[in-house]
């Protein structure tokens, strides 16, 4: 196990540097950040040259990347062009997005797995068919349409929620945005759980448990669920990173000042430091989440042994 963890950690290193380098290059293609600083007007050439030197933008890209990474490892993510340290922006934005992601994951687990178990045990019945159809519809309607419609119906028409989230972004305000963010994954979790439950319900150990006379409830929770949840856990774990990166749309619709909002602002204003910094952290979260899922796999399924 220990050797496996070390090997995985070593494998993460090239992936981490590759992904950040790729983003760094993309951002460099994005356009001249100094021009972005000057806004619509043409920059004064002398000022531009001085700023370029100050931010190190006159050096070749690979050198900029190395300098940047060197700074990141000392905890310095640079300064946004408005003079605010990027770490300060992160400290404001990440807790908000983390809360949003947690709400989304909560819905995925509670609603997704419940629906999956219900339909998996009643394969072919009307409940099953209608839930499946519903998941297909949820997967097909793009998140931004779901978000806009829910905001319109719940926030504007019926006035159940506030259409926009306050900067504090408390948990109760994030319920509907979290549901929107979770919607597509929730449908996948439902289908995944349903397939796994339906498959395992025919397994020998379930028949044995039934033959022993165990109550149905115990068979489902102790025997069936534990074995069926392995692929679901993998999916949810890998989804953490995807949700945090995909929160841009949800955060934009509900005006949540999280990671997506800051990134969007950074991109629109060609604020390279913000963009690269946030993406670096997102990539890191994604990689660590995947590693944890792989380790959790071994805990859930004793048949898997890592050399």
């Amino acid at each position: 196990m220990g050797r496996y963890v070390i090997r995985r950690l070593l494998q993460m290193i090239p992936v981490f540097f590759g992904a950040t380098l790729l983003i760094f290059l993309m951002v460099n293609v994005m356009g001249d950040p100094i021009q972005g600083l000057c806004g619509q007007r043409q920059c004064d050439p002398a000022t531009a040259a001085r700023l370029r030197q100050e931010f190190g933008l006159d050096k070749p890209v690979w050198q900029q990347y190395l300098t940047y990474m060197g700074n990141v490892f000392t905890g310095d993510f640079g300064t946004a062009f408005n003079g605010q340290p990027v770490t300060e922006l992160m400290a404001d934005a990440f807790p908000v997005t983390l809360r949003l992601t947690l709400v989304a994951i909560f819905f995925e687990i509670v609603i997704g797995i419940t629906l999956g178990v219900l339909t998996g045990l009643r394969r072919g019945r009307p409940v099953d068919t209608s839930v499946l159809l519903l998941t297909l519809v949820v997967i097909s309607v793009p998140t931004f349409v779901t978000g806009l419609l829910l905001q319109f119906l719940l926030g504007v028409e019926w006035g159940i929620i506030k259409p926009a989230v306050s900067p504090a972004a408390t948990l109760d305000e994030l319920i509907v945005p979290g549901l929107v963010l979770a919607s597509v994954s929730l449908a996948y979790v439902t289908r995944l759980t349903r397939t796994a439950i339906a498959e395992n319900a025919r397994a020998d150990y379930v028949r044995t448990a039934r033959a022993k006379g165990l109550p149905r409830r115990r068979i489902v929770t102790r025997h069936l669920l534990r074995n069926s949840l392995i692929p679901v856990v993998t999916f949810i774990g890998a989804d953490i990173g995807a949700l945090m990166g995909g929160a841009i749309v949800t955060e934009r619709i509900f005006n949540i000042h999280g990671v997506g909002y800051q990134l969007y602002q950074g991109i629109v204003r060609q604020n390279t430091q913000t963009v690269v910094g946030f993406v670096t952290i997102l990539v890191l979260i994604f990689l660590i989440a995947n590693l944890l899922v792989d380790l959790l796999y071994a805990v859930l399924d004793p048949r898997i042994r890592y050399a």
Partner: protein
Amino acid sequence: MPEPLPDFEAGQAIAPTGAGGGTDLALTEAETLEGRPAPGPLGSGPGEKPRSLWSDAWRDLRRNPVFVVSGLIILFLVVISIWPSLIASGNPLQCDLAKAQEGSQPGHPFGFNGQGCDVYTRTVYGARASVTVGVCATLGVALLGSFLGGLAGFFGGTGDAVLSRVTDIFFGIPVLLGGLVLLSVVTSTTVWPVIGFMVLLGWPQISRIARGSVITVKQNDYVHAARALGASNTRMLLRHIAPNAVAPVIVVATIALGTYISLEATLSYLGVGLKPPTVSWGIDISAASPYIRNAPHMLLWPAGALAITVLAFIMLGDAVRDALDPKLR
């Protein structure tokens, strides 16, 4: 109802094993038939003729109502994206500001949008952008991904290891983020930058599937036999491996087509996807979203068209998977 949609999403590649194993028999039989004039008359009798995976799948598909319905919707979409004037006589770019945000009226069943353009005409013309992006991006992703993944799976070694790490890197980049960053500089109003971006970020998904599938197939006896008979690598890949390894790629690509259409609309909604004067559902939904309170029809029609299109492609992919995955038979 087709159900095992999420399988590949969880990274357990749908059925490289199943499809590979299932085709074994079919191919050996096809191979023995090879060279004979017409296999039809030689077959012993109706029902006893060996069927290949493909004709089996096609027979299943024709009987599947999900496939028929989604196929008809897609056929309709393709036709109106080639000849939109068949069902919409107006010009999507001809607008009358005096009629902005007006609702349904005779001759204009869906009403007018914020610029006073006819929503019906724009919704019909919007199909072209979505279908073009979806089809071209899927073709690009499938070709590039299966080429790279197939070669890596077949030859293994250093190239394979490098490719695996490269796909890891691409998986580490959130798609929407990459889209915002890369496409925010694009000023072109054509669909090609969006397609190029999707191919750039989409190929690793197919490449992984193709690699796994090729690795499974190349261990089959008929591949060893071909090698023993002195077949070249190219011949083994094209004649023996590719036809047997392609099923999972087709399934994933069909479902991906729907998600690419959805992604195009999302990017257009964020303002970095397609740009006017291209007519796109994403652009229209984005433009209508601030006025949803006063004129919801401006948003609901293009959104509905988008949802139906994505739904049709995902259902098609689901049906194709059911037909091509012998494990479910």
